[in-house]
């Protein structure tokens, strides 16, 4: 299959603008700015079935169309390169190996929504990778692809790379905006949505790194080409991050809607030491866990929703038969407790209670009521918070206990783990 985002991965030469230009680089941006109107760009993206690849899966063209056309305020594009969902590491690869692809996507997206300023928000830990994108940006400014009157058009654009300082919640788009404004990352109530009231109170589109990096290919090759690569309603390819107990962990670019089984067994080499599969988290640690008999599911928004999970960030975490699932859930739960911003009571308190109960179970001190109290606690968080972190903490707890209740019961009965050693 043709690779779009990953074709230059692991080739250090590919980062240079000379390499990128030789491959037709920045021609899609030139085409958009010189022969297309912003509306025709948006229409093309809409027809391509490109969806947000950060986790929520919202149709990108539709999101762009929410920007008010008559607003006198400046408009902003914010690229979400915060990538913090456990199990996800695809955006880092794009920044590290093909930064110009992201930058060209930014030009086209900004033109489409009428933004003259873009901020790339990335996590503080990605300092080195932000440096690679900055070097590419400097090169592109040198070619006058950024700045004033780009490609001889009337369009001006400046990009700023902004490093955060360590907080998972800042990957949530409104927390990200708060953080970008210099505040702590407390998510905002929606509505108003960022497309209307976003950064500095102005209309703002927030898109994930991978999403924006797909834009040049769509403009270059057409929406039909892109839509045909994926599955219904999910255009193009996706970057699947695969980690845990597989022989070949890594990022695999495959069509949207590839089955989980194919990703694990054909591409990631199967389970390490040819052990038996015990459980798979399909879309980053917040997505409900799947049992081995469920992995023929297609990795797209609708197919995973149909089995009660989420494609999320497509971060596939594979667990073999030696895994203690009580420990796995305790780790996940502790993460969401640590990262809860503390704004909403159900999340702030609930994540703490779930984590303490799970720790007790891990230490052999669990009681039978725990297995009813945990899902009940999770249910009291679910849907009762400003942002999706509450749901992200609740769904793993509910799904692990629903699907692997026997293992949790055995922990309580025996005071210890009974997983295969």
């Amino acid at each position, binding site marked *: 299959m043709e690779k779009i985002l990953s074709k230059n991965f692991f080739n250090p030469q590919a980062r240079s603008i000379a390499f990128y230009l030789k491959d037709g680089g920045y021609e899609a941006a030139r085409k958009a700015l010189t022969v297309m109107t912003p509306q025709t760009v948006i229409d093309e993206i809409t027809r391509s079935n490109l969806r947000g690849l950060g986790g929520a899966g919202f149709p990108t063209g539709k999101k762009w169309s929410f920007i008010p056309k008559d607003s006198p305020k400046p408009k902003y594009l914010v690229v979400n390169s915060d990538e913090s969902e456990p*199990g996800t*590491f695809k955006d880092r690869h794009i920044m590290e190996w093909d930064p110009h692809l992201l930058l060209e996507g930014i030009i086209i997206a900004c033109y489409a929504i009428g933004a003259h300023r873009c901020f790339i928000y990335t996590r503080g830990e990605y300092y080195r990778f932000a440096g690679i994108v900055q070097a590419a940006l400097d090169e592109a400014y040198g070619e006058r692809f950024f700045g004033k009157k780009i490609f001889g058009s009337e369009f001006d654009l400046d990009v*700023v790379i902004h490093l*955060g300082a360590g907080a998972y919640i800042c990957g949530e788009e409104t927390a990200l905006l708060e953080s970008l404004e210099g505040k702590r990352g407390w998510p905002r109530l929606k509505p108003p949505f960022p497309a209307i009231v976003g950064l*500095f109170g102005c209309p703002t589109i927030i898109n994930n790194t991978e999403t924006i990096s797909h834009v040049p290919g769509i403009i270059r090759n057409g929406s039909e080409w892109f839509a045909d690569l994926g599955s219904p309603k999910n255009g193009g390819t996706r970057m699947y991050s695969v980690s845990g107990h597989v022989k070949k*962990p890594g990022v695999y670019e495959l069509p949207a809607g590839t089955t989980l089984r194919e990703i694990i067994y054909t591409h990631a080499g199967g389970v390490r030491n040819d052990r038996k599969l015990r459980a798979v988290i399909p879309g980053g640690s917040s997505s409900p866990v799947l049992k081995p008999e469920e992995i023929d599911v297609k990795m797209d928004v609708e197919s995973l929703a149909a089995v009660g999970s989420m494609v999320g960030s497509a971060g596939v975490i594979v667990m073999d038969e030696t895994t203690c699932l009580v420990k796995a859930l305790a780790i996940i739960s502790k993460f969401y407790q640590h990262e809860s911003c503390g704004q909403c009571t159900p999340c702030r308190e609930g994540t703490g209670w779930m984590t303490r109960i799970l720790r007790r179970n891990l230490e052999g001190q669990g009681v039978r009521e725990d297995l009813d109290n945990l899902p009940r606690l999770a249910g009291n968080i679910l849907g009762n918070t400003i942002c999706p972190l509450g749901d992200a903490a609740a769904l793993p707890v509910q799904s692990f206990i629903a699907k692997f209740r026997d293992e949790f019961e055995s922990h309580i009965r025996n005071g210890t783990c009974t997983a295969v050693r």
Partner: protein
Amino acid sequence: MSLGALSDKLLATISELLAKYPQPRAALIPILNACQREYGFVSAETEAAVAEVLSIPVIEVRETISFYSLLLRKPAGKYRLQFCTNISCSLLGAEESVATACRRLGIQEGETTPDKRFTITTVECLGACEMSPSLQVNDDYYANMTPDKVDELLDKLK
């Protein structure tokens, strides 16, 4: 005047950062990151100077600093060993590497060696799960950590 807490080099960096944003407050985290790169942490004096530069109350600077795990209000060691112990790294035995580093350096997780060379912390997902168990030392990533590799690395960083 508290601006004296900031070096000339830092004041120049701050001017550059302020020029990038339509509102000065937006430069706060980049400014704090720059201060920490210069001094290793953000002291009370630095907080006050940054607040003065941005014309905001010191408490707002502290509120921001205390929210973010990478901003330090106390000095750390020259090498900050940040071991990921989230799910993918833990599945592959991250705890053994942490234990090795703690034993070897004679400190607990969260502590700094008396010679101020090393700080050990366990952190949440570093976005490098294909490198599990992963470790970040200052800005650099290290992959597939094992107790032996921790030993080797500590020898090199001496």
